[in-house]
């Protein structure tokens, strides 16, 4: 079993989705995350084991490589796609309550911003690291974040913006959340966002990469 979980982690790390996928070239024709996850479940692995010992391990490695500029968005998206292929088999088990997650993360791009590549990447990485992710999509009003936060009182909120022009809305959203409940943690990210900006708008975390966020969430969850 250990070997099988290692193989799944390897598939996630290198973006091998399923047998039919031509990427990466050196794994052509081999089974991918999809087939191997089915096999692991058949052989008695639990959803939690697969998540913890395969998906989180693989996504963790991708996260570190992304942070170190060794891989970029295309490679991470392939990894995320491989992870999703595995998650498709695990999700019904989580939904039925037979398996546990580490916590809940609510994410969306701020009002006026329709760019979701970064937001999707973060959502996938966080999910791949064992959290339930509530993805509110793009162009999300502050009120929507507030109502979701009420439904999931322990959730951490993540705001994404790609445009310098929508960063002002990020400031307003953080303010609205903090006014309602100063204890709610708000993390921000996106190409134009900086630590400086984070300090100015009183958000709790800025991370230039998803891995930093995952580490922060792990710290809060522990």
């Amino acid at each position, binding site marked *: 079993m250990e070997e099988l979980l290692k193989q799944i982690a390897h598939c996630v790390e290198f973006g091998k989705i399923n047998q039919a996928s031509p990427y990466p070239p050196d794994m052509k024709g081999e089974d991918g995350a999809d087939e191997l996850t089915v096999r692991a479940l058949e052989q008695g692995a639990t959803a939690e084991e697969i998540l913890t010992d395969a998906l989180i391990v693989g996504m963790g490695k991708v996260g570190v490589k992304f942070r170190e500029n060794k891989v*970029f968005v*295309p490679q991470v998206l392939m990894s995320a796609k491989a992870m999703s292929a595995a998650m498709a088999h695990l999700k019904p088990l989580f939904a039925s309550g037979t398996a546990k997650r580490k916590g809940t993360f609510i994410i969306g791009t701020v009002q006026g911003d329709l760019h*979701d590549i970064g937001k999707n990447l973060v959502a996938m990485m966080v999910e791949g690291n064992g959290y339930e992710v509530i993805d509110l999509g793009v162009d999300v009003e502050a009120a929507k974040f507030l109502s979701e936060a009420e439904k999931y009182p322990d959730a951490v909120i993540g705001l994404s913006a790609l445009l310098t*022009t929508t960063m*002002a809305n990020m400031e307003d959203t953080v303010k609205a959340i903090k006014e309602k409940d100063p204890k709610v943690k708000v993390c921000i990210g996106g190409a134009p966002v900086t630590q400086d900006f984070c300090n100015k708008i009183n958000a709790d975390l800025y991370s*230039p990469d998803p891995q930093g966020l995952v580490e922060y969430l792990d710290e809060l969850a522990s």
Partner: protein
Amino acid sequence: MDYKQTGLTLVKKAFNRENVERIPWVPFAGVHAAKLLGIGAGEYLKSSGHIFNGVSKAVELYKPDGIPVVFDLQIEAEALGCRLNWPDNSPPSVISHPLQEDIKIEDLSIPSASDGRIPIVMDATGKLREKYPDIALYGLITGPFTLALHLMGTDIFMKMFEDPDEVNKVMSFCADVGKMMADYYIGAGCDVVAMVDPMTSQIDPDSFETFVSPYAAGLFSFIREKQSLSSFFVCGNAKQNIEAMCRCKPDNISIDENIPLDYVRDTALANDISFGGNMRLTTVLLMGTTEDCQREALECMDIGGRKGFVLAPGCDLPMDTPPENLQAVTDLVHDEMLQGELRASAAPATEVEKLDLSSHWNKDKVVIDIITLDSASCAPCQYMVDAVARASHPFGEKVIYKEHKITVKEGVQMMASLGVSNLPTIVIDGNIEFISQIPPVGKLGEKITEYLKLKTK
């Protein structure tokens, strides 16, 4: 102010990596110009008249050496059938990707000059050209990778691995669209065609060289054949691709705050390419004070230097950037004295090692120190030094005078040691006597006489 060179000449010189008398300043006033007119971004970007008026207003306020006609990377996408969302306070965003729907790349054709908003933009370009013959007009075209992303959506990232032939086909088409737009802009009178390809910051150097370089290089070579200048703009952290961008042979690359300017300077100049950037957009230009903005500009200028550098914001200016912040940058760019003062005050007094001046003074002679930027390049400094020389002459050996230029360390130390904070300043026996204004020779002579009397007492 410096009227010796037109903005266009300065920009051209910078692009050709010649030494410039003054670093050219190119504020990327996109939808910010709509703000200057008090209208929304959508209304602005759909009207040739508004664009003309907005850019005119920006020229009047910011005295730029170059300026883009519009900063909108959705013009080509819209003409190719992408649907747009129009917020009031930023450029539109693409909300539909034709190639994700039922349309094939073969079904698309290169937009003509009358499609979408292209005629509006070209009309504004022509009129601005006529009104401002001495300013470098920038025509911004959507880079092929960003346009391909508009057409394909984020599928492009995965298709780079799963269907590279398809991606190449789309890239080739997008580069052709870019050539068409470049041609329209050059025809309408633009001096610089800037290919803006922010999405390339998201890919690795191998993918860049495989899917972007061939098309970008083709575009720049096309622009060169048209005897126009080219620039490669990228927003976001594209540090990994700067080398590869240089190898595409644009005349200039322009980057934002995510990439260290000194790194870009060294890489670009080593490749015989000029460079520009990278003032921080939100934390400084939008949210900072006028002094923050001047210090930011100065830091960029000091790193950029007078050879091959264009001072610019990192990317499209946030719409609500306070005009006074940009005017403060304009003031700084045109005022070398202010640059010198700011530079000197930038080094906090505690950091500057003060000089031991005990042997500097003389019990029989009057010592005059003139703190200047550099009398060789700053006219008021030169007149002040001249005035001191002429006033001192009749006193012969009784007066010792010396110019301290703050372009060298000793000058900065002397300035701090004497407690001087403006340039140029005349200090007599350690007392600040004349600040900025050049005193008449007679008045200076009287002062010297007063100080000499103190010595004989």
